């Protein structure tokens, strides 16, 4: 990755994330889940420029086919080779703050979250719970899943589980201000 690319990155990522913020001021509603996707997909758009060739695993034993991993937008090419290049290059320390998920929210996840939402509205909380656990298995690190799970538990007056789920969701929401706000609001509601 060249310095120019890095500069572009460091300028654009916050801008894009910020634009998401104005784009979708109240992420709190479940219907607005899609509001996060621009932020994530923006990384999808930008990052490929920094992905070089994917290394392949060194197959050993009887495995005859070399294994390549699915294109991972987060991977940075090149083997670490200490001090091999002469030009000092600062690494943007802010970069880690962007806790952008490596995968965009899948249609499957959105469909299941919506299904759970309508099951909950129809008063069928147990089914909604099952649907959300399906969603969780597909995207176990997506805070949106925990947001909805926590809200459902709150709805069921199960305050303890609601709180733990909100905390877990919050721990997965670094760098996502809206999500953090949503979880903090929720935690206040739970403790009321």
């Amino acid at each position, binding site marked *: 990755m060249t310095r120019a690319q890095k500069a572009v990155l460091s300028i654009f990522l916050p801008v894009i994330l910020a634009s998401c913020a104005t784009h979708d001021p109240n992420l709190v509603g479940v219907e607005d889940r899609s509001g996060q996707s621009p932020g994530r997909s923006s990384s999808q758009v930008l*990052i490929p420029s920094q992905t070089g060739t994917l290394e392949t*695993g060194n197959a050993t034993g009887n495995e005859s086919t070399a294994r390549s991993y699915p294109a991972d937008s987060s*991977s940075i090419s090149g083997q*670490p080779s200490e001090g091999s290049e*002469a030009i000092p290059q600062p690494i943007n*320390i802010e970069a880690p703050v962007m806790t952008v998920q490596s995968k965009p929210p*899948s249609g499957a996840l959105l469909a299941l979250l919506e299904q759970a939402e309508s099951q909950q509205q129809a008063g069928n909380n147990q089914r909604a719970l099952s649907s959300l656990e399906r969603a969780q*298995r597909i995207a176990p690190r997506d805070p949106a899943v925990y947001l909805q799970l926590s809200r459902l538990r709150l709805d069921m007056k199960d305050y303890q589980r609601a709180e*733990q789920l909100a905390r877990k969701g919050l721990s997965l929401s670094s760098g996502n201000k809206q999500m953090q706000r949503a979880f903090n609001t929720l935690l206040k509601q739970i403790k009321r």
Partner: protein
Amino acid sequence: MAKKTPAARGRKKQNKPARSRSSRFLTFLFKLSLVGFVVGGIGLIYLDATIRAKFEGKRWALPAKVYARPLELYAGQALKAEDLRLELKSLGYQAVKNVSRPGQVSVNGNRMRIRTRGFGFADGQEPSRTINLSFNTGGLHSLADKQGRALPVARLEPVLIGGIYPADNEDRDLVKLEQVPKALIQALVSVEDRSFYEHYGISLRGIARAMWSNIAAGRMVQGGSTLTQQLVKNFFLTSERTLWRKLIEAPMAMLLELHYSKDEILQAYLNEVYLGQAGARAVHGFGLASQYYFGRPLDSLSLDQHSLLAALVKGPSYYDPRRHPERALKRRNLVIDLLRQQQYISDDLADKAKKRPLGLVSNKTLVKGAFPAYLDLVKRQLRRDYRQEDLASEGLQVFTNLDPIVQLKAEASLAKVTGQLAKRHGNKLKDIEGAVVVGNSQTGDVVAVVGGRNARFQGFNRALDAIRPIGSLVKPAVFLAALEQSRQYTLVSQIPDTPLRIDNPNGTTWEPRNFDKKSHGTVPLHQALARSYNLATARLGIDMGMDKVIDTLQRLGVRRDISPYPATLLGSLSLSPLEVMQLYQTVASNGFETPLRSIRSVLTADGKVLSSYPFELEQKFDPAIMHLLQYALQETVREGTAKSVYKRFPASLNLAGKTGTTNDQRDSWFAGFTGDYLAISWLGRDDNKPTPLTGSSGSLQVWSELMTRLRPQSYQAVMPEAVSYHWVDDRTGWLTDEVCPGARLIPFVDGSVPEQKRGCPESSKVRKAVNWFTRLFSS
């Protein structure tokens, strides 16, 4: 008899004058008949009541069915086509050119079309539908319905992996008459009781015909019993062959016919009949027999297969198609001939059917009972929550988290690596054993359990019952206890790795040593963990105090008593691989303890949720502190004792883990996680003798073999708000410039960032290449 007597009496009364000896005899006969009539009548009434009570009240004891997780299908899923094919095979899908019925699949290059069967889950009915799938190198690329519209998500039926059987070991899948194909009933009636729809329970014609065929053939080829009689025999009467039983069989059959329709009798018969033996398990009814012999539901079988099932009724063991294929084939073809003779099928159809092979599935490919170690875990949980008789009789549906794809890969990895090790080390590792447990690193789902090298063997389940010292796997708890004192310890705290002697509470002394028998001077805390230095760990633990370490272990999920002796610091604590997984689960999920789950939910036979085991969690550690520990566990894999793992993985894949080796190398452990999986591997001998293996040369190899097969997702740490990264000089623990030699990017919890900073002269500055720690959050 009862009818005749009154008529006889009438005749006698006309000859009143002749009161002779014979008339006295007749009077006696009359009285006797009267008694007989009454007794017989009472007997019949009694039999009748018995039959009605039993038939109507008859509920088969239905064993609980245990299912694997249903496979979720969605675009972007890292599912290989070959793994989907394996799943479909376990479900008994038929490969066809054009998909027309549920349970069929057609494959065309990297495209696949399947028609699912549909299934009733806890969250609702999954419909039967046609799905078009396409694959690329990353896995499942797209998913569309019949009309080509994108489908967000679909579920396959879950694979049946086992059951919980009643004491008599009878197993069956109940079928309703409507579900049973006509062809099977025709075949059954043709060969067993061709006048079934005409007779009243017994068939004189049937008996006569049977005798005639037996005489003609010179041996027993047909029995004279009707289906009704056979049912009575199985249903109401004990298996002992007594005269009494023979005597009441016919009247009972007739009474049964009197009260119930042919359809009701047939349905009971179809579910009752004994059709084979799977080990200790008795296969009853055509529903289960179809699964047992063909791995598919009854309504998907072909004419020749229906004929084979009908052929088996006469003697499931004599005609066992797996043990005596020629006998079975001959009798199947006899059934087909009978069908033709009785004009159910054309000559052409019969000839074609007779040419087909038996078409059995191999006993080995049957998934039911294939994963004894996992089922063992499920059963232990069920026995805690249910009564054995309910499990064995209520037909409960148990949905588990077993992922057969992962399970098979875990079994293969353990078998392959232990095989290689045994070959390399010869006699020393001849009887090496092992265990693997695999879970979802976030949800706490246990997805695979391997209890030994021979995974089909239902014996000692090492994953649950091998309670062994965990060695260095305990160290993260010691370091975690230290990092929690964030004012006192950071990842760059300088720890002396120098010899020490500790007096035990009982008067003995404890003098630990490093694995390489050396001491390494003063080392930064992160390195002491990554390189698994015993002396530094012991010093750190002693500094902290045993109480803190024990408390940390308990919060991580250890439920056993923990010895307060300092040897605990280096892993004298004994745990099973599953218990180790619980401990690392808390680490992998950022400090939230999530109880491990093998069961998702239990449903009644008709689909009502009886109990669910929802996702539970409790925050036990600050995610910011856990983030620091995860850093050191990633370092272990990148630079420390487990670095050999990257020989097999691209540098872009983030992994984290810890090796463990116990005294004299009796136990070899590795606990590690990726973005999606957490897996624990253990190798050792059942007799607890030393091995030539370390955690790295043994269990780590099993783990990386497994991960190579699983193609895991990269572990992307989410950086907590309270954490920031700084460049630090490893030798001093001071802040430095990124371009200085020895600079390392290290996470700190707010308020613990070192205050001192020392740069380096311009001349010594180097350009840092991208290193793994800059990749941690990547993105």
